[in-house]
């Protein structure tokens, strides 16, 4: 099986789907000839022609709006928003339109649209290249929100997203595009090739939306994470020597509540990790759900380790980023609690 980076796996997912289904096409800023600023669409224009993989005007409203029209026609467009930070101009089309067209038309029209966007910090990108806006999508009925953490998952989830009949927000953790960065800046970042989840089949396969993945079984406490933070949480568990059960959510909406509840019922302790600002972040929803479902099992207050309620600062980003030491502190707190 070939070893792929997450970029290559995403590219392979698009390639697989474009070759299987003539209704799949992809566009976005710099997506065509150049292959995307992160190279996710590399060679697709060459292979499938400019009508199936092309550059878009710098207008995220238009990218989303046109894609909705295409999806309504019956195509399965995959659009790239160059950075999640630039999705705001598309937000109305995604929230007021894509998310609601099935409902408001009583399923007369549907929007099988996939919206790819790189998110997250740790790349010295400053406040407009580092944001994690997942909670702005999880609040919106009608949207699904997916975040992979490995090349294998990225391909399988992206294929599921493309085949899904509803609009899917597909957030890509750009910090782990090229290697499973785990937040330990004192150690060299491993390439994906050394990671088991970089083994990615060439062909078609799916990972179902709505199913979490227990990436580390453990008995002491449950850690809920997604995207880059899965790797950071694993590193924290390892460094802390705490027998944490680390769950990679993979899909935020619809959430795999069962896997979460089973784990917390077992451990009685829960740490939630994300990079987004804390207040009203997705961690708040997770915390609320865990206490609703596991109140009588909880032995300690649920801990949130998150980005702070500030814009993402350029030079201080390693203080902003939830690093293993911060997660370990929270694990210790939850163990003591």
């Amino acid at each position, binding site marked *: 099986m070939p070893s792929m980076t997450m970029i290559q796996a995403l590219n392979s997912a698009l390639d697989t789907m474009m070759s299987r289904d003539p209704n799949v096409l992809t566009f976005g800023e710099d997506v065509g000839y150049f292959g995307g600023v992160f190279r996710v669409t590399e060679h697709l224009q060459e292979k499938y022609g400019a009508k199936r993989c092309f550059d878009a005007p710098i207008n995220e409203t238009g990218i989303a*709006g046109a894609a909705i029209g295409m999806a309504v026609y019956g195509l399965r467009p995959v659009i790239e928003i160059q950075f999640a930070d630039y999705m705001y101009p598309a937000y109305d089309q995604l929230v007021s339109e894509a998310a609601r067209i099935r409902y408001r038309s*009583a399923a007369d029209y549907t929007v099988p649209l996939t919206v790819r966007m790189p998110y997250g910090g740790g790349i010295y990108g400053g406040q407009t290249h580092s944001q994690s806006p997942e909670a702005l999508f999880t609040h919106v009925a009608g949207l699904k929100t997916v975040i992979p953490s490995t090349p294998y998952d990225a391909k399988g989830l992206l294929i599921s997203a493309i085949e899904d009949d509803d609009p899917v927000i597909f957030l890509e953790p750009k910090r782990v595009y090229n290697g499973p960065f785990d937040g330990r800046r004192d150690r060299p970042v491993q390439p994906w090739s050394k990671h088991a989840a970089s083994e990615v089949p060439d062909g078609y396969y799916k990972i179902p939306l709505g199913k979490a993945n227990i990436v580390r079984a453990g008995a002491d406490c449950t850690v809920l994470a997604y995207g880059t933070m899965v790797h950071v949480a694993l590193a924290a568990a390892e460094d802390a020597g705490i027998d944490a059960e680390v769950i990679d959510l993979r899909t935020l909406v619809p959430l795999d509540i069962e896997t979460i509840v089973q784990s917390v019922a077992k451990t009685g302790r829960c740490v939630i990790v994300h990079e987004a600002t804390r207040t009203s972040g997705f961690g708040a929803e997770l915390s609320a759900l865990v206490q609703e479902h596991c109140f009588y099992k909880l032995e300690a207050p649920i801990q949130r380790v998150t980005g702070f309620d500030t814009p993402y600062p350029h030079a201080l980003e390693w203080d902003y980023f939830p690093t293993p030491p911060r997660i370990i502190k929270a694990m210790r707190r939850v163990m003591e609690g």
Partner: protein
Amino acid sequence: MSSRKPNALEMHVPAPRARPGDKPDFSGWSLPEPGATPRPDVDASAGEMRDYAYGLVRVLDMEGNALGPWAPHLPPENLRRGLKTMLLTRAFDERMHRAQRQGKTSFYMQCFGEEAVSVAQAMALHPDDMCFPSYRQQGVLITRDYPLIDMMHQIYSNAKDPMKGRQLPVMYSSKKDGFFSVSGNLATQVPQAVGWALASAYSGDVRIASTWLGEGSTAEGDFHAGMTFASVYRAPVLINVVNNQWAISSFQGIAGGENTTFAARAVGYGIPPLRVDGNDFLAVYAVTQWAAERARSNLGPTLIEHFTYRAGPHSTSDDPARYRPADEARAWPLGDPVERLKQHLITLGEWSEEQHRTAQEAAVETVRTAGREAEKVGVLGVEGAHTRGSMFEDVYSEMPWHLKQQRDELGA
């Protein structure tokens, strides 16, 4: 603000010529003569067509004659069909407006005075061309023979509402009639229409798209998005700006109509503009034909400004007497689309006052019959029209656990 500097800057806020109490004043508009505007070839370049942004395509004069190169020379049956469809639309509006007043529903929006904009265009398009309307294009649905009663079911949110009670009245949707689900958010349909048109072109299909928005809505960013995408990829789409001169209480100067026309927006994108008398059925028909043929020939989009006047209130929530002269609609020099087409048919010897009265009564009767039937099914607020559980359906293709849980929580 008191001691102004020499050469101090000053802010300009546009104001209409007439407010309540004033005499209506349309003297600011120059209106070219009917028949005077040449008809370019459909493959004219956008550059050659710039001046059309500042003119006005007119066919019918006020005596009912069809003049000039844009006259579409339709068979009288078609004209009569157009007239009857406009009459039906008007009768429908009247009844539903009244139904709202009677508390049978929450809200209604007429297209009074603007019937030609939808009806003539829908007749000129192919029946399977795709329409992305605003909330004032009920005429398209009616032209396409969508059952009036189903529109009423929607307006009443009753048990037979095709939208299952989920949508505000007039937010129709009918895929089989090529009528896209109406949105409450202004102008969002414009880039969607462009995307649909591109998908059609992508697929080697023959169907084109058409979209409508108000002149006020052209200010929205989505209009710019749609125009940009339409221009760049030469989408086979008609973008109709219905300039009815008002956006709720704001006159068209607030949308940018003080310094130029709305058709002129097209010039900026290298899209051909056509500005048409929106109360002239034949002119609307003719410019639609032109633009549709252009689109079908892979020559790209056309922007059409329909110059008309919103003769009614914005919606049932609105009272125009608060912000414009009460008799402004009557003073509008381009008259009423129904009256003008009627006059044309009479001038042609293909219609009479008598026939008109009969047709009008027939329209009212058709609407009345549908209305009674619809009301039997139910009006807004009747308990049990929709199961509470239905609220949780169609959010997703399959209902996820959290919606099932919420449904159970509601005891539904």
